[in-house]
């Protein structure tokens, strides 16, 4: 039971390693991250969508924890 968080930590750590480790390259040796950003999308737009996604994911996480907590509290179905 104590090992519950480990898969989440492992997956997230893997992704963070990949995405932070690749900096400053978008395509290693060919293109840097700041060269890949669109010139037409302003910082404000990117911030709006970032906050939007954070909000969505926060909502989803809360709902997920709530629903899974209910399932766990309910316990296994009787045989």
């Amino acid at each position, binding site marked *: 039971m104590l090992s519950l968080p480990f898969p989440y930590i492992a997956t997230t750590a893997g992704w963070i390693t990949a995405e932070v480790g690749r900096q400053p390259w978008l395509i290693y040796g060919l293109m840097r991250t700041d060269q890949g950003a669109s010139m*037409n999308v302003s910082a404000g737009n990117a911030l709006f969508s970032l906050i939007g996604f954070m909000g*969505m994911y926060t909502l*989803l996480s809360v709902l997920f924890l709530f*629903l899974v907590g209910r399932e766990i509290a309910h316990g296994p179905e009787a045989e």
Partner: protein
Amino acid sequence: METLWFCLVAVALAAYVVLDGFDLGAGIIHLGVARNDEERKQVLAAIGPYWDGNEVWLLAAGGTLFMAFPSLYSSAFSGFYLPLMMVLWLLMLRGIAIEFRGHIDSPVWKPLWDVVFTGASALLAIFFGAALGNVVRGVSLNAKGEFFLPLWTNFGVKGEVGILDWYTITVGLLAYVTLTQHGALWVAWKTQGEVQRRSRRVARIAWWTVVALTILTTAMTLNIQPQVGANLRLHLWGSIFPIISVVSLVGTWIFLRRSQDLRAFLCSCGFIAGMLASAALGLYPYVLPSSGDPSLGLTIERTAAGPYGLRMGLMWWIPGVLLAAGYFVFLYRHFGVARFSPPRDEA
């Protein structure tokens, strides 16, 4: 080769609209045709096995677009950034609503997700229609082939345009009523009892609005985008697509009157496919026209990937799509003509 890919992107997009269209349509009519929990479950069961796979065709179309016309992808997805983000969130909300609804037996939980399901589906239909309107009308491209559209400018269709103007709003409404009809016909085919009766009524009413808005939108399109009329005159064989649409629309009505739901639904599929094919034909060779100077418009030549890439892509795309299509045939046959009946105590 570029023309072939133009057609393949159009095919993938048409597949998405025909397939996920009835999921969205079922969502739009969900609150109206299903008045209690059992009926709501019927509607959700009608799209249950299919909606997730149908949605994936959007990714297939987007991926095909990215592969075949990368500069168009980059230009369009930057220019339409905010509406695309909203479409993404609406798609997420639609999926969440379907999946979460059944988890808690509560008079607050279930209606909440029902409303989210219907709202997200309705907005998606309107957004997708407006997106098509934007593509046909053209956008304010600069010399580098880039643009960024505000939500609206002066609601006019020339020069500096916005995402919403009287034309794109009309196309959005056309998409809304078309998908309402499409979804109602699917739900009518897949259910029995009260839900089926109400869906057939919705389909009948929707049909008239589809006819009216199709006529209006066609007139507007021919007026606004001279490319469309010019292409039809140039490629007279292309008028097969509008003819398919008209015949299908008439067929929808005939089969609806005879309560032959499956045939009516298939005619609705034909209508949507014919309409999208007509739009693709009208647009060619532009993939994204300019709302100002026509020479700034993005054509398939300007935006297509290199010939090697296109050839390689074809070698992967064809087996991939055949595999996907084979699965879909299996899926629809497996769940076959199962109709979802009302619970026994209501019969």
